[in-house]
């Protein structure tokens, strides 16, 4: 565990990619294979199951650190991370141990056999045998909140350098359903793929936005300049659902979401069409709610995703469909290297022979002869229930991960409104001691009504300025939230809007964020609730 804790600090200490890869390689060559696999599991989001809930962890930490509960909570607000707060508040340890990462994880997994008193005794003696950095990573693993400031691709890069395998091969091998107990390092890095996991998905190919930000819109001329002849490109609407890979192998079906969650059970409506497909088929597409031949807004899908049990009512209110846009395995063969045009032909054939065309839908190809045509069509995206376009090169293979060049997303410009900041709260992680989370309000007659929270979109310099303003202009404090003098106006962008009974303003926004700080505007110039409700129509 000490090696792992040191790895964590070393990764924290640099923001240079090469340096991170170097640190990872150094770590991988010094730790045993079990630790390598555990590390890989943690870095790819395969956390051990949480055996003690964080309320208990918190209350035992409070007890051990001997401070009142309110002070513990305030410390947590200052630090912004529970695992770190506990690591900082606990008394200094007097003992040490040399258990490896895998040994600790094995202990965590075996907690399932202990009762609460035994768990408590175990946790306290564990804490008292660790240094601060060890405690921190241990707490993160224990509470199931392990996240690192290093992307999966860097870990894969390090392993690729060590094993001599291609990064794309390794990326594929670590997809899907494995856990560190059943997977071993040697089979991961051997030449031939030894996996028999029939549920294993392919790494998703992800597109970059062609417009870097919504502030820098591109004209059709600029698009032409970067993409060239429109004849080489296929355009599809960009759907607002959940990206998913649907797999049928040997009569078994699997649906993976982009976050690498197995979501087969969440979408029973999709099972019949998948079972009917020829064995050895993998489709890439969008799981989306669909009724009367129309995609439904994302918030309808959202309400059913969180549910454990899909009731009859949910199935009626939010019926699912799958809009397929690619076929990446056909008749048991990986066809990712075929050009898109050929893959599309295969996909269309599969669709043709399906008897479930209401559920198994094809993402229509939008016909256009010039970028100008497409530019105009894009402005109508919302009428088509889409978020803009996906542009894909007809001769492109299906690549691994986010790559520039062959696939682009060209999103519709966000809706926007000018609003006044009225509450501020400290952020988390990197922004843990800065006021970075704001609540915005618009005018309802002569009152300011809150309607959205947003926390991204400002530069570090602007954040410092707003932070400074918040501290100087606090009217009231409610726990971590400060009411600030209404003075700063921001342009808030969002992707969509829906009626809501839960919000004071009567609307809920989809993906609100700060587009710009309007230092030129006074609060009287902010928008009104009427303007916002116009968007509902």
């Amino acid at each position: 565990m000490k090696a792992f804790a040191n790895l964590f600090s070393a990764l924290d200490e640099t923001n240079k990619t090469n340096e991170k890869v170097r640190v990872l390689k150094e770590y991988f060559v010094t730790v045993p294979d079990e630790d390598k696999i555990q590390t890989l599991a943690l870095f790819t989001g395969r956390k051990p199951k949480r055996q003690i809930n964080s309320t208990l962890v918190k209350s035992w930490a409070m007890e051990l650190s001997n401070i009142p509960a309110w002070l513990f909570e305030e410390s947590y607000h200052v630090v912004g991370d529970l695992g770190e707060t506990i690591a900082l508040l606990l008394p200094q340890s007097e003992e040490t141990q040399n258990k490896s990462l895998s040994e600790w994880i094995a202990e965590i997994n075996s907690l399932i056999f202990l009762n609460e008193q035994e768990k408590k005794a175990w946790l306290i003696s564990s804490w008292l045998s660790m240094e601060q950095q060890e405690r921190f990573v241990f707490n993160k693993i224990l509470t199931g909140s392990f996240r690192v400031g290093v992307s999966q691709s860097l870990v894969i890069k390090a392993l690729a350098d060590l094993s001599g395998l291609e990064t794309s091969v390794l990326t594929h091998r670590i997809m899907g359903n494995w856990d560190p107990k059943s997977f071993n390092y040697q089979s991961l890095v051997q030449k031939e793929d030894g996996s028999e996991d029939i549920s294993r998905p392919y790494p998703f190919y992800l597109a970059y936005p062609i417009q870097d930000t919504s502030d820098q819109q591109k004209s059709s001329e600029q698009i032409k300049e970067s993409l060239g002849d429109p004849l080489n490109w296929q355009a599809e609407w960009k759907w607002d659902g959940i990206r998913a890979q649907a797999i049928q192998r040997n009569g078994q079906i699997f649906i993976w979401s982009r976050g690498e969650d197995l979501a087969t059970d969440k979408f029973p409506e999709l099972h019949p069409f998948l079972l009917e497909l020829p064995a050895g088929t993998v489709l890439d597409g969008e799981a989306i709610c669909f009724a009367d031949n129309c995609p439904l807004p994302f918030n309808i899908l959202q309400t059913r995703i969180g549910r454990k049990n899909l009731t009859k009512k949910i199935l009626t209110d939010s019926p699912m469909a799958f809009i397929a846009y690619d076929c990446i395995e056909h008749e048991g063969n990986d066809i990712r290297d075929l050009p898109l045009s050929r893959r599309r032909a295969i996909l269309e054939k599969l669709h043709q022979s399906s008897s479930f065309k209401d559920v198994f839908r094809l993402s229509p190809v939008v016909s256009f002869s010039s970028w100008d045509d497409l530019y105009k069509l894009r402005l109508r995206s919302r009428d088509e229930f889409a978020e803009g376009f996906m542009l894909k090169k007809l001769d492109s293979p299906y690549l691994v991960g986010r790559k520039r060049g062959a696939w682009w997303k060209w999103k519709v410009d966000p809706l926007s409104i000018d609003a006044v900041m009225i509450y501020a709260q400290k952020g988390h992680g990197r922004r843990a001691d800065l006021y970075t989370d704001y609540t915005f309000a618009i005018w309802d007659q002569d009152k300011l009504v809150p309607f959205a929270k947003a926390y991204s979109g400002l530069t570090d310099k602007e954040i410092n300025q707003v932070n400074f303003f918040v501290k100087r202009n606090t009217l009231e404090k409610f726990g971590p939230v400060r009411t600030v003098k209404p003075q700063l106006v921001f342009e808030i962008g969002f992707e969509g809007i829906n009626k809501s009974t839960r919000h004071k303003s009567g609307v809920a926004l989809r993906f609100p964020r700060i587009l710009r700080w309007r230092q030129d505007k006074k609060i009287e110039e902010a928008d009104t609730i009427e303007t916002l409700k116009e968007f509902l129509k």
Partner: protein
Amino acid sequence: MSRPLLEFNEKGIFCSAGNFYIDPWRPVKYAVITHAHSDHAKWGHQKYLAHKLSHEVLKYRLGNIDLEIIDYNEPIHINGVTISLHPAGHIIGSAQIRVEYKGEVWVVSGDYKVEDDGISTPFEPVKCHSFISECTFGMPVYKWRPQQEIFDGINNWWRLNVEEGKTTVIVGYSLGKAQRILQGLDLSIGNVYTHGVIENTNEALRRDGVKLNPTQRATFESNKDEMRKGLIICPPSSVGTPWMRKFYPYSFGYCSGWMALRGAKRRRAADRGFVLSDHADWGGLVQSIKATGCETVYLTHGYTASFSRYLCDIGYDAHEAHTLYGGDEISELDENPVKLVNEYGEIIEPVDDAEKNSADKEIIILEKPSKIGLTDSEKAIALKKAKRMGGAL
């Protein structure tokens, strides 16, 4: 009820019986200064009283002020009020101010730390009825390690950089932190270079008889190969400037109590963050307050709300004091020398807009320096002084 011995008004901490202020932020007739940092020692007062080891630094920072100096534990009397200075351990020459009148004793801590840093006279608790204490780091998550551990870390990192052929650049407040780091370095590794502002401060301290390790001004003419093995100490304002970039390749480390939290450390984007503070940590604050034997505590700087609540919980009559030191969490990195100084420490002729100075300071990463304390008339005085001082140092 009679008037309290010390009170907070719009100019600072005021003693009506003695008609003087402690660390005032607006111009007053008589200012007792805890230490020479810019948020405590401001321009424009008619008369100053401070500790003798602040003499040269105050003159360097504030120009030709009317300054009276005394030693620790050397009481003076004004209108029947007894004032004495007591070591605060914050920086060289930093003092707590003890004020006694008709048997009642108040102490103003200024900034302080409990650990003996080897260069500042160590903190001594002073018995009092009411204690005005800072609490910059008044949260239990702040616990300092012994400074030797931190210095070992800094020296090891320096050695590693020498091996990798990188210059070591370390950032710390120019008065206090810079000298503390300097004294903790292992000089067998290489030479120590300083940014002009720090070297001027070092010179001022040396004039006051403070013994510091040898340093050289870091200039572009300095021998590059020598510098690669060396360590440069510079103030927070130099981070990200072209001046600093000239020393590339380098590894750059920050020294501050704020480095205790991972978020703050990562935001700084430094290669290394060393948790080294000249303020008391949580344990130090609680221990010091208990040692004064006081009943009433007023809190300034930092987490005043939480800390006063905690002190009330454990039986003190504790209050948040509303000061203009800069609200909460204004950091120890918050350096605001009002003079314009170039990288060699030479004073630049100010342009007619004094704001330009604070604009230059925006590269201070943690927080913009507080803009309070400079009224238009103060600005005028400041500019006049800077002009008069031009080239004098």
